[in-house]
C-alpha cells in the first residue's frame, strides 16, 4: 500500500525531522502537521540559556521553516485517536490519515499541587514567564539538578542572582557520572551557586506562587523565585482508549513502530527492548534519529535504528559533550588534557574499549567522540 496522506502530530524537532525525512524519501503525498503550540517549530535548547538571559528572542531559535507544501496547523491540539477509522481528533475537528507519526513530546513535570502556580521551563511560553520573573528576583531556588536545572542555575548566576540548587542526589551525577559531575559542581560552587543534596523528596511551599521548599528534615529553603526542573512527562493523554500501548510513554519497537501505519518518535516514546525492558532517551539527537527511523518504517517497513547516544550541556563556561552510556562509573582514562587544566577528553572504563567518552571544553566533534567508542557498545541503548 502506498501512503498518500501522512499526519504528524507534534511541533518540535521529532515532528520536523519526520516531515523532512518524508520528503527526503520522496514521499509526494499530503503532509499535515498538528501542533498545539502558537509558534512554528523552534529549538528548546537555548531556552535555558540565551533566551532566558534575555539576549536572544524566540525569533532567534525558530527552526528553518517547513516547505510550503506542508500543511502546518498551529494551535491545533490532538484530543483523540481512532485507529480503526484512521482519524486524529483535534480541538479543530477530525483529521484523517493513512500514515501517522506520533511526536507529541513531553511537558514539564510538576511537583506541586494544582493550586500552586509552579514555574517550569519547557516551552517558549514557560521561558518568557520565567525570564520576566527572573528580572525582578534577587534569589532563585532551583529544584532538580539535571542538565536543565543546572543550566538555569548557570544563567541565573550570570545575571547576578543568588542561586541555590536542591536535589535528592548530587546534581549531574546521574548523567555525567561522579567525576565530571563533581567537576562541574565545583566550578558552579566557585561562581557562588549553593548546592543542597537532600535525603528524600521536597515539598513545595507557597500558594499560589511557590516561595520555597521544605526538606524531609524540616529545613526550609526560600527564594524570590522557585523553579522546578524535575524532568518531563510524555504527552500521551490524547491516546487514552485508542489501543495504543502506553507505559510511561508511547511504546515503540526498535524501528519506532506503534501499530500498523502508526509510528512514533521523540520524547513521547519509550522503546521496548523486546525482552520486557523499556528505555527512554529524551535527548535531541535521539528525537532526530527516531524520527528518521519512524518514517523509514512507515514508508518501507521497519529496520532497527541505532541510537546515537549523544547528549550535551553548556553551563558555567563549561561545554560538556557525552557519547555512550550515561553515568560512567569510576576513574576515567585521560585521552587528552585534564580536568584541572579546564579541557579534557575522558574515556570509561578504559582507553582501549570505552563505553562512554566525555569532551569537556575540548573541541572534538561528536562524530569523532563516537568513533572512540568500543564498536560493540554502539547501538546498545543507554
Amino acid at each position, binding site marked *: 500500500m502506498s501512503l498518500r496522506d501522512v499526519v504528524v502530530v507534534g511541533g518540535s524537532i521529532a515532528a520536523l525531522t519526520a516531515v523532512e525525512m518524508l520528503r527526503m524519501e520522496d514521499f509526494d503525498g499530503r503532509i499535515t502537521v498538528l501542533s498545539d503550540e502558537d509558534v512554528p517549530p523552534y529549538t528548546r*535548547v537555548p531556552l535555558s540559556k540565551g533566551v532566558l538571559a534575555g539576549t536572544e528572542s524566540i525569533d532567534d531559535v525558530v527552526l528553518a521553516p517547513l516547505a510550503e507544501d506542508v500543511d502546518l496547523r498551529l494551535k491545533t491540539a490532538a484530543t483523540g485517536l481512532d485507529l480503526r477509522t484512521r482519524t486524529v481528533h483535534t480541538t479543530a475537528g477530525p483529521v484523517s490519515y493513512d500514515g501517522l507519526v506520533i511526536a507529541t513530546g513531553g511537558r514539564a513535570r510538576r511537583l506541586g499541587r494544582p493550586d500552586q502556580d509552579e514555574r517550569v521551563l519547557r516551552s517558549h511560553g514557560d521561558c518568557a514567564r520565567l525570564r520576566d520573573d527572573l528580572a525582578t528576583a534577587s534569589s532563585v531556588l532551583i529544584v532538580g539538578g539535571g542538565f536543565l536545572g543546572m543550566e538555569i542555575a548557570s544563567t541565573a548566576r550570570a545575571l547576578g542572582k543568588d542561586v541555590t540548587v536542591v536535589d535528592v542526589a548530587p546534581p549531574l551525577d546521574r548523567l555525567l557520572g561522579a567525576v565530571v559531575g563533581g567537576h562541574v559542581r565545583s566550578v558552579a560552587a566557585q561562581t557562588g551557586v549553593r548546592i543542597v543534596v537532600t535525603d528524600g523528596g521536597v515539598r513545595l511551599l507557597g500558594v499560589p506562587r511557590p516561595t520555597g521548599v521544605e526538606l524531609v528534615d524540616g529545613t526550609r529553603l526560600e527564594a524570590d523565585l522557585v523553579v522546578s526542573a524535575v524532568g518531563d512527562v510524555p504527552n500521551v493523554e490524547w491516546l487514552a482508549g485508542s489501543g495504543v500501548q502506553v507505559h510511561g510513554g508511547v511504546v515503540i519497537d526498535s524501528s519506532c513502530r506503534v501499530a500498523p501505519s502508526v509510528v512514533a518518535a521523540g520524547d513521547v516514546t519509550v522503546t521496548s527492548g523486546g525482552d520486557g525492558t523499556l528505555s527512554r532517551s529524551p535527548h535531541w539527537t535521539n528525537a532526530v534519529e527516531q524520527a528518521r527511523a519512524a518514517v523509514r518504517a512507515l514508508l518501507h517497513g521497519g529496520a532497527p535504528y541505532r541510537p546515537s547516544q549523544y547528549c*550535551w550541556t553548556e553551563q558555567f563556561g563549561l561545554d560538556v559533550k557525552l557519547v555512550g552510556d550515561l553515568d560512567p562509573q569510576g576513574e576515567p582514562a585521560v585521552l587528552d588534557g585534564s580536568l584541572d587544566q579546564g579541557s579534557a577528553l575522558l574515556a570509561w572504563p578504559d582507553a582501549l574499549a570505552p563505553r562512554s567518552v566525555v569532551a569537556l571544553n575540548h573541541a572534538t566533534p561528536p562524530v569523532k567522540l563516537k568513533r572512540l567508542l568500543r564498536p560493540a557498545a554502539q547501538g546498545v541503548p543507554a
Partner: protein
Amino acid sequence: MRIAADRDRCEGHGLCVDTAPEVYDLDDDAVVVLRHEVVPAALERRAEAGARVCPVAALRVEQMSVES
C-alpha cells in the same frame, strides 16, 4: 540557495554534518564551515535538512531569488 552559518552560535554538535556531509563540515575547532558559497541545486534539500536539525539554530536557509 545560501546557508548563513552563525559561527558564534555553533556548538559543534555536528548534526548538520551527519545529515548533509556534502554541504557542511566542522573545522579543527569543531565549528561549522560551509562547503559551498552557493548551495548547488541538487543539494538544496539536504542543505535544508542539515540546517533544520541544528539544536542551537545556528544555520539559516536563505533563498536567493524568487524561484520556486
